């Protein structure tokens, strides 16, 4: 069955579209990767124009995140106070990142630097996760908690504006999550990618939040950032295809269900190894992409996502640990 997408202006096989959403949803349920660096390329592979793919992805994430937040809320995994603090930091960071991109574009080096940032961050995060996970695997199944010893971050306790985040059972200065998410927002805006693989490890390792609360809280933040992105894309660029978004959401939610069930059979460090491998594969692919001669010297301009500051925000996604429904 073929469906004509009204804003994308093309016809596409319904099952291919739902299947693409299911693949991303499976990875989301399995690894918590919201698919920022996967969804757009997959949509482009099935014929969706890049600008439509990027903008509509935000809308699809609103649907998936709403479903995820509802589930995590029932499980007590959403820290609204932390979520709002992170959201404010992300907004600030994305705004700074967009201005930085404008400066880089004037200097003429934006695209190359963005590619290098992508490779460095993906490769660095993926590589360190892989090393840490392999060490854990060799250490045996009785893994100690991955949360660092309190003393490592004790200097954070001396900062002003100390607040208790009851749901997360942590106490921090509000400046800490705000500043950390500002940095991630800048990176996300520059790279035009999710940041999901950065924000949940940040919440777990630095803010010392329980992993499942980090997942739920991050989903809450992503819901609002993607809602803002969707609105801005719809009003500024007219590139949000609601039919496409809903079909993707239908597939991704089913895929997430399956992926979440599969996590039963895998340990946490095994999941992290898969996630790390995925990040490294993308990093290697990007390195190969800039080294080999392209098939065409011309590529259509889809304006870099960071230039639209709300789109940079959309990428503050989470490594959603996948416990949506089982």
């Amino acid at each position, binding site marked *: 069955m073929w469906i004509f997408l009204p804003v994308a202006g093309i016809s596409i096989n319904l099952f291919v579209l739902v299947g693409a959403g299911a693949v991303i949803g499976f990875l989301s349920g399995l690894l918590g990767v919201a698919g920022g660096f996967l969804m757009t390329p997959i949509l482009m592979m099935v*014929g969706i124009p890049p600008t439509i793919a990027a903008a509509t992805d935000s809308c699809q994430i609103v*649907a998936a995140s709403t479903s995820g937040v509802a589930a995590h809320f029932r499980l007590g995994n959403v820290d609204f106070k932390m979520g709002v603090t992170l959201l404010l930091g992300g907004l600030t960071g994305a705004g700074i990142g967009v201005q930085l991109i404008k400066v880089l574009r004037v200097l003429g080096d934006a695209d190359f630097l963005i*590619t290098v940032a992508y490779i460095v961050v993906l490769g660095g995060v993926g590589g360190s996760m892989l090393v840490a996970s392999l060490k854990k695997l060799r250490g045996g199944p009785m893994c100690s908690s991955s949360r660092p010893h309190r003393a490592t971050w004790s200097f954070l306790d001396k900062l002003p504006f100390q607040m208790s985040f009851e749901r997360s059972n942590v106490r921090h200065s509000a400046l800490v999550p705000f500043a950390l998410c500002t940095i991630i927002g800048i990176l996300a805006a520059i790279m035009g990618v999710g940041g999901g693989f950065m924000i949940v490890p940040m919440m777990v390792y630095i803010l010392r939040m329980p992993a499942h609360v980090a997942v739920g809280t991050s989903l809450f933040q992503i819901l609002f950032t993607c*809602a803002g992105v969707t609105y801005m894309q719809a009003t500024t660029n007219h590139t*949000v295809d609601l*039919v496409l978004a809903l079909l993707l959401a239908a597939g991704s939610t089913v895929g997430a*269900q399956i992926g979440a069930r599969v996590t039963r059979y895998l340990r946490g460090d095994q999941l992290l190894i898969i996630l790390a491998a995925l990040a490294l594969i993308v990093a290697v692919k990007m390195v190969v992409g*800039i080294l080999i001669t392209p098939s*065409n010297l011309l590529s259509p301009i889809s304006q870099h996502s960071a230039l639209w500051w709300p789109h940079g925000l959309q990428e503050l996604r989470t490594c959603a640990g996948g416990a949506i429904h089982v």
Partner: protein
Amino acid sequence: MNALELGLVLSISSAVAMSAAGIEPVAGRMRITPAVIQKGFFYNGAVVKVEGSIGNGATAIVTVTGSDIEERFNRKRRVAGVWVNASKVRVFGAPSLFLAFSSGPVRNLVDPHAVETRTLDRLAVVRQICIEPHAPSDLETLQNQFLAFKRDSGSYLFSESGIVIGAPSENGKPFSLTFEWPRAAASSNYEVHVYEVEGGVISREVEMPLQVRRVGFPEWIALLATRQPALYGIAAVLIAAFAGLGIDYLGTTLFGTKRVAHG
């Protein structure tokens, strides 16, 4: 002058003008089916048929063209061993869509001057493509790269087959061409040109319009997205959110809410 009289005057005027230019009106000799391609919600592409009759000693060339558009591209260069988007170029003067069908190499059928003036083959299309900025030595490369991009997207096609020509008769030879309309072609107005070629000369040219239109639900959504973007944006967010809640409810009903253990 009422509408009927005005219509008659316009019809006669166009017929006179077209005859003066050596172009005959459609008037039953050529036909395109469908003349309007409607893209509804379950649109699955379309098959277009062009048919008519030509002289017993003639052959036919058919082209389908869209309006000229301007597009912008990133241009890659190798810098310090890596390929980067080094600059931006503007491409203009090229049609949004160009499909050409003939019964052999066009330059073997028609004199080269006619091929260039009427843009009948790949070389003629390339010469129309304007690219700014460019170094003089780069122009041909960039033109061919643009052409390759359009061919890969299905917007440009140069086929030396597909035209079926029947047996000669008292009324000339029937011919037909059937081709699949490119799925990615935008909703717009296109022109179908049928050239009757005899002895290396274009003896007759017929132009027929082909409209591609969104209809029904897709048209309503697209109009809402462009004319009421704020309303569309808010509706998109709310519909997506409610869809998420609905899927959550469905999942809860079907699968329950057991927690998954995290490693």
